[in-house]
């Protein structure tokens, strides 16, 4: 198993590097197609042709695109993500200040949403067709159908403005106690859970149902195992693969896709950094963020696949 897993990891890492390379080239190309460049954005309305030329030269934007790409690539290979064009700070420093925030939000959201989703998915599968199943279905579907900015704004209106239980802004500098942490993260995490739980719960339900129809389940029931034992002991281990994949895909969204939540709660995460970077046409920063998102995504999928292998004796034995 070890050999298999390490072979898989090695192959995946190799592929991941290739993917990152392709993604960086594509992103570079597409950002280049955007109207305007960093010099024009930085000068805004003050962009006289003379000033733009000078700033372009300072940023090195007057070099051919291919040359700029390979220069960037060369820097990255030597471990340097370059300097942000919009504020002259190192890209790695900018990302380093935001990444922990994004990880924290993603981690807490995962901590809440995954158990809830599993619980909902498994129970609605166990009682398929029942009232409970239908109620859970409608609930999760309606939360995923409501746009997150609406959920977030209503939550702020109710809990922060009217009731004043929770702060409207998520501040990281002031977390000093567990209670403070809860207060600050309650609303963003809740909003994100609304989006994520439904997807994961439905995938779980489908995976569990799929297994419940299998003959080994019938066997277990015939042997007199309780429904609880059937699901937890027999079905669940066989559904880890698909569930892990569903969870991984959902969680990867937590890195780059949470712009709305970040802006409503003024949460300084990576997604808003990247949006700023795109607006400012700040190529090194865009590339840096994309690399982080892409790497996180690949890592999550790799973990999901490993979980699948570990949970499946047939794959494990090979």
């Amino acid at each position: 198993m070890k050999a298999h897993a390490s072979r898989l990891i090695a192959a995946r890492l190799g592929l991941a590097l290739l993917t990152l390379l392709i993604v960086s080239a594509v992103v570079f190309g597409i950002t280049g197609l955007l109207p305007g460049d960093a010099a024009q954005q930085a000068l805004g309305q003050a962009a006289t042709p003379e000033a733009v030329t000078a700033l372009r030269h300072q940023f090195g934007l007057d070099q051919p695109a291919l040359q700029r790409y390979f220069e960037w690539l060369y820097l990255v290979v030597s471990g340097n993500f370059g300097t942000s064009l919009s504020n002259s700070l190192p890209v790695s420093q900018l990302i380093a200040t935001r990444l922990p925030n994004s990880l924290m939000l993603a981690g807490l959201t995962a901590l809440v949403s995954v158990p809830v989703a599993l619980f909902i998915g498994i129970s609605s599968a166990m009682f398929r067709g029942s009232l409970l199943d239908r109620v859970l279905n409608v609930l999760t579907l309606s939360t995923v159908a409501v746009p997150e900015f609406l959920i977030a704004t209503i939550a702020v209106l109710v809990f922060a403005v009217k009731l004043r239980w929770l702060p409207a802004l998520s501040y990281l500098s002031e977390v000093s106690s567990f209670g403070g942490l809860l207060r600050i993260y309650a609303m963003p995490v809740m909003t994100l859970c609304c989006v994520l739980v439904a997807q994961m719960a439905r995938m779980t339900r489908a995976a569990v149902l799929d297994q419940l129809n299998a003959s080994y389940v019938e066997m277990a029931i015939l042997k007199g195992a309780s429904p609880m034992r059937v699901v937890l002991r027999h079905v669940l281990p066989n559904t880890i693969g698909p569930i892990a994949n569903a969870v991984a895909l959902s969680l990867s969204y937590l890195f780059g896709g949470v712009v709305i939540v970040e802006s409503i709660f003024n949460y300084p995460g990576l997604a808003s950094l990247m949006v700023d970077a795109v607006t400012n046409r700040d190529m090194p920063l865009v590339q840096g963020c994309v690399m982080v998102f892409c790497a996180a995504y690949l890592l999550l999928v790799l973990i999901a696949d490993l979980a699948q292998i570990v949970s499946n004796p047939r794959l494990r034995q090979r």
Partner: protein
Amino acid sequence: MNKQNLQHADAPAGTEVTELERLTRRGASRREVLRALAAAGMASITGAGLLTASGAAFAQEKPKQGGKIRVATQSASAADTLDPAKGALGTDYVRAFMVYSGLTELDSHLGAKMALAESLETKDATVWIVKLRSGVQFHDGKSLTPADVIYSLLRHKDPATASKAKTLADQIKDAKATGPNEVTITLEGANADLPVILATSHFLIIKDGTTDFKTAIGTGPFKIKDFSPGVRTVGVKNEKYWKPGLPHLDEVELIGIGDESARVNALLSGDVQLINAISPRSTGRIKGTPGFTVLETKTGQYTDLIVRDDGGISGNDDFRRGMFYLMDREQIRRAVFQGFGTIANDQPIDPTNKYYMPGIPQRPYDPDKAKFYFQKAKVGNTPVQIFASPAADGSVEMAVLLQQAAPAAGLNLQVTRVPADGYWSNHWMKHPLGFGNINARPSADVLFTQFFKSDAPWNEANWKSPKFDQMLLAARGEPDDAKRKQIYGDMQVLVHESGGVGIPMFQSSIDGYTTKLKGLGSIPLAGLMGFMFAEHVWLES
């Protein structure tokens, strides 16, 4: 006590009245009453330089020292900067005014008063002698010297600085130290507005040789404690600030919340104490919540209809007149800006400006007249495209209003809506019909020079008038203020009558704040007291 205070009988002014009533009731002597009146009047006068009507009413309260506030502005991004030359957005200007001071600063009528300069003297408006205030220290203890001033001014001329004020700074020919505390600035040509230009945030004074802006060492009221671009800026009180008794607050934290409703929510939930750039739609909600209120600052900011001369019909004078008669200014003010703002008259100087010329007949909404002019210009039925974008505040709504009015004038107008992203580099001044959004400028000269002079890079309508250029230069070098005002008045008439941009109205900037925050006034450059609120406000316990 002045009349204005009695008219605006808000709470503190009310207390003045009660004090008077109390004195009169118990039969106070005439002398006592006079003394009370004089005291109130004095307070108003000392306040007046600093604050406007509402501020003056507050001025008699004794400011409380200490406390911290959090302020949310509409813009924060990874492009936030501590370099005054690069400041592009409100947050940058606020940050700059927290950390740095200028040679001069703006008062409530956009006049200049002395700050780091003790005096600014000139005979011909070309050579200026700046006497520096002595004993001013930077945050790190270094004393302010002429070298700092010279460096701060001349660096704008270097294209590598990427200064937003390069065009203004190019007027400065040279700056030299001519004494231990004296700098002589020589301009390329006469400009009587130099003191006002030096009061803008781009020309704030930094330390000689500064190239690294990861943190900021200035002479301003607050020292930088934490600066993370796009997240927050924390300033702590500079105990050695050169203005005695200021600032009042111990700490100001500056954050950006891009989403307007999130910003309002943050205020109403008590997370922040002051916000800017409120949509007129939210004012009712804020005023309806006990403990919160709004402050409207009338500014010279405008969104204008650009009828750009690019060789086609849009260069035709009659066509331009027709377009301007098609603007329903009242409706724009009412429907697009909820009644906030001042109706304008197709010339860029707003009524708060000391050079504003009243009495130019207002151009009304008149589709019939527009029709007349369109026929005269032989527009015919060819579709005319107008470009609008959310980047130019309110322009999409204005374009739609124009489109609705157009058939009555026999014009076939089609609106093309383009995204805000990249608008300024790709659409602004690139189409025969489009919109611009011009922030208030500190002086009439800057505004006319940047946007109306024949060879100005941002001459939006490509409008060329040698007569106008001549008057501009004459006014710039005119040391006599009354004569200057006369010339500026004639220029306003000229732009109104023959200019290529339609200016429907001047916009207001609306701030929201908790009523515990005192001392907030308005400087008509922009909201947040022209970005200079930090040193003036205090927090009532």
